[in-house]
């Protein structure tokens, strides 16, 4: 049971990261490989604010999330807008280029030494023999809160409706006068902010190193595909499921296999059920007849 709790914590972080990724995939129609580098950047900026400048973890987290959200908007304007008309393939490879550049920036700015957040785990709570630390509770709470806020934003505000319109039919939305540029900026802000938040959470739980981005892009991709990319609920479930599976599998097989479990699940799902775990409509674009 203890591992299920760990899995839920891992899964919550994964769900936050993957939602940001899926949002861009839905509205901008490409897989943004640089998303996981945003997570790494978030982890590093957070650790510098807390460790070097002695900031409170919540304040540092908030500054990181808002700041990197803005950085994401700027990066999208510089890198992705100019090649947007060339389609998803060019955008995908541009995002690989951007990921390499962000990775280089992280190496140059923060060095290759692993960094740690000062101990913020807080006291250990026990419920029916299962221990959970305060920071893990806070992470789950923040994940639930931010996902709920996103859901509320998408469903009950004008801008949220515009985003959903662009996601379901880009051209139609444009023709109907939806402010596509504003929508795009909002999406990049939310996506990058979610990525940065997931990065800070990952950093709080473990070490912050420069390889965080490359490690996580595959797991985020796995969760996104598993969730079917189209539904928020699907992505959340996929994130949780993947997190729990990775942590529970540690009981049966050596922990070294942890990533293999994630990718094995991904490959199995893609091949057996390419439409994702939740979507009803068959994913036509994924499979040949």
């Amino acid at each position, binding site marked *: 049971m203890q591992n299920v709790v760990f899995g839920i914590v891992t899964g919550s972080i994964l769900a936050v990261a993957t939602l940001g990724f899926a949002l861009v995939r839905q509205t901008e129609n490409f897989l943004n490989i640089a998303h996981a580098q945003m997570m790494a950047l978030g982890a590093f900026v957070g650790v510098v604010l807390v460790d070097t400048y002695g900031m409170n973890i919540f304040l540092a987290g908030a500054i990181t999330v808002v700041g990197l959200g803005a950085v994401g908007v700027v990066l999208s304007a510089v890198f992705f807008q100019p090649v947007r008309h060339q389609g998803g393939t*060019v955008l995908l490879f541009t995002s690989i*280029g951007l990921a390499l550049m962000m990775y280089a920036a992280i190496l140059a700015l923060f060095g290759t030494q692993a960094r740690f957040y000062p101990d913020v785990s807080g006291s250990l709570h026990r419920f029916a023999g299962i221990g959970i630390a305060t920071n893990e509770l806070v992470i789950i709470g923040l994940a639930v809160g931010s996902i709920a806020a996103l859901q509320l934003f998408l469903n009950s505000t004008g801008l949220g409706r515009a985003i959903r319109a662009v996601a379901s039919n880009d051209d139609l939305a444009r023709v109907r006068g939806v402010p596509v540029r504003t929508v795009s900026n909002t999406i990049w802000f939310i996506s990058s902010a979610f990525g940065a938040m997931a990065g800070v959470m990952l950093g709080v739980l473990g070490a912050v190193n420069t390889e965080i981005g490359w490690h996580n892009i595959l797991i985020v991709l796995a969760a996104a595909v598993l969730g079917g990319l189209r539904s928020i609920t699907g992505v959340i479930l996929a994130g949780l499921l993947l997190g729990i599976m990775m942590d529970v599998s540690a009981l049966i097989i050596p922990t070294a296999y942890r990533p293999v479990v994630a990718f094995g699940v*991904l490959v199995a799902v893609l*091949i057996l059920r390419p439409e994702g775990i939740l979507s009803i409509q068959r994913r036509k674009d994924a499979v040949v007849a």
Partner: protein
Amino acid sequence: MTNPIFWVGVLTLAMIYASLAMSLNVESGWGGMWDLGIAGLLAAGSYCYVILTASDPDLGMRFAPGLSMWVAWPLSALFTGLVAFAIGAPALRLRREYFLITTLAFAEIIRQLVVIQADLTRGTVGIANINRPFDSFVTGRDYNYVLLGIAVVTAAVMYVVTRQVGISPFGRTLRAARDNEAVALALGKRVNRMRIKTFVLTGVLIGATAPVYLFYIRAISPQLFAPGITFTVWTALVIGGLGSIRGGLAGALVLIVFTEAVGLIEVDPAHINILVAIEPFLVGLLLVLVLRFRPDGLFSERSSFGAARRSAGDPAGDAARVAGG
């Protein structure tokens, strides 16, 4: 400039990347299969070669038949082809980014398996001092020229083989199926079987290049096969021109010479971080710039096949190429 040995090494590396990029071009450029699993295939070929030639009992490997490198070399090419078949058979049912994700995941699985199966591969410790051909005849610094020769011959073989595939009826059908799968199917072409053949062929070619890569690196460990190398090969191919015959060769030369030359800049040891960061930064920057200002690369596919391609102004052809992956 610095001593010639340095540039011999740079050229050798460029030729190795050129071989990989030209192999990748067959499946991704002409076949339209967007494979992000190059690192996995390279790992399969490299480890197959290393394990088959291992003989030193001190290494403590469970299986070390100590075959001659001339036997192990073709065997690793074959083995990589088999691995490619095992990946391709299920993965080729998927299209576009789903194929891409699957190949990336398979590559990562292969790398993790290498780490875990430490009794066979020596895991993260790796194996150093890999034997190289002719190193009993030529020693010391002169050996670098021998290695350059091997790499050039390999690249030349890859060029000839991929060019033959490209201009053959098989290559034409492959490109036709990429641009318009429905028409190719309607004409009775077995598109899926063709794609698996292509995927396996790329595996064999990468497996054949793998030993040369090992001769250059001289030591093997799982970190070599992180996704980074896949992205570098792709960058070389995109710079040179995806789908063109010479693209991989030209792109790899430009990319490797450029990134290695920048490494020569004298940097204050205090700023060692920046030196480490230069290579990924340049690879990324080149990729972004080429995609933005010359998306066809240095050599376009049209320049390779001239009249065989439809006119440049044909939007359907371009749309199909973009959607084809």
